């Protein structure tokens, strides 16, 4: 599946990373070097290209003798991304069962009020650390801050809460990079002229809002790009499809591009075009990474696309970072996992070059809901994967 081109790049990246890690950034701790280890080689570019120094957190005061009880409060597993993300977390807990005695998991069904209760229930069970993927930034801030003040270290993963003093570190990928890259690619692919629609995720969820802001930052430099309409899609393929169908009906061929911030609604949008009678090569350029079906449909119907997965592998890094905290290893205040840019073969633009083309990234046989950037062992299938972990 890996092209020679990709291998060359990987070797090159590893070379640079090696030099940097060994030399310039000799003080970078293990967790930072490891941030993109599983499935994605190389140090995250957000770490390398940060024009400021990366801020480190001293975790000595959280150091504790193992084995540990870790509580993981998940917002939900209500879409393919979240399922793969939780799979990574459970798998990683299993991989570290020498250090983890019990790994407790709760699921809030996207209800922040329930998640507050879930977090309290985990605290009641005497967890040594809380790993939290909050349903919303704001509503969980208070309860998370109270946990920290009670002496329970908190590591945020995937999403954070509003106040930085309420957690130790935040394991994520850069939503600003996702938002900028997608918008930059769209603007350049359309040569700076065109009417587009924006299909962001969930209103109020921080990844969605940050991406929108980053999109707008880019478009502010392209006055020829006109946003016809923006509709939230809840990162749901069915909603994405229904929303896009309505937009096609309203604007038809006037739409020159579809800026979806994820493939979850993105492939729904492609399906809406197919249902509306658009054929191979007739669908306008689209963005959105995260699940295989988007890349597969783009290949099958010649949709010019650019995707940048928000890697579900951050769950694996989240567990590893949590263990770093309990072991007293310093961690960056923000742990970013690596991301790769995927485009259709002829869709690279001046500033957005592909790390991989569509079929380097997924195969046509992959399950449609596969998250390609999962970091899990070869042959991972979300439908059947059932990792062992210390319960």
């Amino acid at each position, binding site marked *: 599946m890996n092209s020679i081109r990709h291998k060359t790049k990987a070797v090159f990246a590893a070379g640079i990373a090696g030099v940097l890690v060994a030399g310039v950034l000799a003080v970078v701790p293990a967790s930072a070097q490891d941030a993109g280890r599983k499935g994605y080689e190389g140090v995250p570019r957000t770490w390398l290209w940060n024009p400021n120094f990366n801020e480190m957190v001293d975790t000595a005061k959280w150091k504790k003798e193992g084995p540990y009880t870790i509580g993981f409060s998940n917002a939900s597993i209500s879409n393919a991304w979240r399922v793969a993300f939780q799979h990574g977390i459970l798998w990683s807990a299993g991989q570290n069962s020498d250090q983890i005695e019990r790994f*407790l998991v709760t699921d809030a*069904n996207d209800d*922040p009020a329930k998640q*507050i209760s879930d977090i309290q229930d*985990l605290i*009641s069970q005497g967890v040594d650390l809380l790993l939290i993927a909050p349903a*919303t930034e*704001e*509503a969980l801030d*208070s309860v998370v801050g109270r946990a920290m003040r009670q002496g329970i270290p908190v590591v945020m993963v995937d999403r954070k809460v509003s106040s930085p003093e309420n957690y130790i570190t935040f394991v994520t990928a850069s939503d600003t990079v996702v938002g900028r890259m997608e918008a930059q690619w769209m603007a350049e692919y359309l040569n700076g002229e065109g009417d587009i629609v924006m299909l962001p995720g969930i209103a109020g969820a921080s990844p969605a809002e940050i991406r929108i802001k980053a999109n707008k930052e880019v478009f502010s430099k392209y006055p020829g790009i006109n946003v016809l309409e923006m509709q939230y899609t809840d990162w749901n393929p069915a909603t994405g499809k229904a929303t896009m169908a309505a937009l096609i009906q309203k604007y038809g061929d006037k739409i020159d591009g579809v800026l979806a911030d994820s493939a979850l609604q993105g492939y729904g949008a492609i399906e809406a075009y197919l249902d509306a009678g658009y054929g191979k090569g007739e669908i306008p350029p689209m963005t959105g990474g995260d699940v295989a079906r988007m890349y597969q449909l783009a290949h099958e119907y010649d949709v010019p696309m650019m995707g940048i997965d928000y890697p579900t592998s951050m769950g694996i890094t989240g567990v590893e970072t949590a263990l770093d905290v309990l072991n007293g290893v310093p961690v960056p205040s923000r742990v970013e996992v690596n991301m790769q840019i995927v485009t259709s073969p002829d869709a690279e633009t001046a500033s957005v070059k592909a790390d991989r083309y569509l079929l380097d990234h997924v195969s046509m046989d992959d399950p449609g809901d596969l998250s390609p950037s999962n970091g899990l062992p070869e042959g991972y299938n979300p439908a059947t994967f059932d990792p062992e972990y210390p319960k």
Partner: protein
Amino acid sequence: MSAIVATMRRNRLLPNYMVVLLLLAIIIVAGTLISDRFLTVRNFSFLFQQMVVLGLVSLGQTFTILIGGIDLSIGALAGAITVFVASFLDWRPDLIWVAVPVAMMLGAGIGAINGTLSVFLRVHPLIVTLGMSSVIFGLTLMYRKQPGGSVPIVFEDIAYNNFMGIPITAYALVAAFAIAGVWLQRTGTGRMLYFVGGDEEAARLNGVPVRRVKILAYALAGFCTSLAALFLVAKTGVGDPRIGLPLTLQSITPVIVGGTILAGGRGGVFGTFLGVLLVSILNNLLNFAGVSSYWQWVVQGLIIIIAVGIYRSDRRGG
């Protein structure tokens, strides 16, 4: 199973709440066996903090169901009030004394409008309150699409702090249910809710001001929702238009499980209180047992069906 229960009922072996109490006992024993941290002061303190919102909306829902109605605008209203309070306060503690009574009036007022529309337009409350829910939600979203605003820390403390070792929320919840219980059973106006729910026509012929009683029931539901929303916004610290939405359906479960029948006229707040305890402790237990939240839905559904089944068999038997 239901035949046994019916027989026991006929012989007065099984008072109304026995089923819920029995389930509660089973859950507590199971919890104690599953984890030695289940039956602890800390866990039960948290439980009372968790219960208060569900408790107050269910209390409100009890009034509307008692008169044979229902209020489906509870969730949207709760969200709207959190948005109002957080936006209005915006960290300022000195405005709490304005925000709280205004929130209560807002709740009671919207409730009264629900009741009035349903009574005078003669439209089923299901439709009126569903429509109202949509109106409130839309208006709230126009003002604030994403969670925002903020309440001062001292306001958050009412949701999390203890007074003499017991959560403030526990006092609030017990007081609200006690007042409501006494009012319903011991006052003329309170008992009118039962008359209206039991047989509206008979109540009218006996000189009960049916329309006013109905409007009052919805106003009380709105008022309780506003109290719940105050605790909710204290808990989360922000106004969130969506945060209340699951409460609409959640508020019905404890009422039904507690033995208040959907047709109205029978039941009461003590049963609802037990229902709230049951649902809350059950969710807590399932979290302790590491059961996926999908099962939490399934088990809640099963409990409703079983409870309603038992109450129905009771009516046939009685």
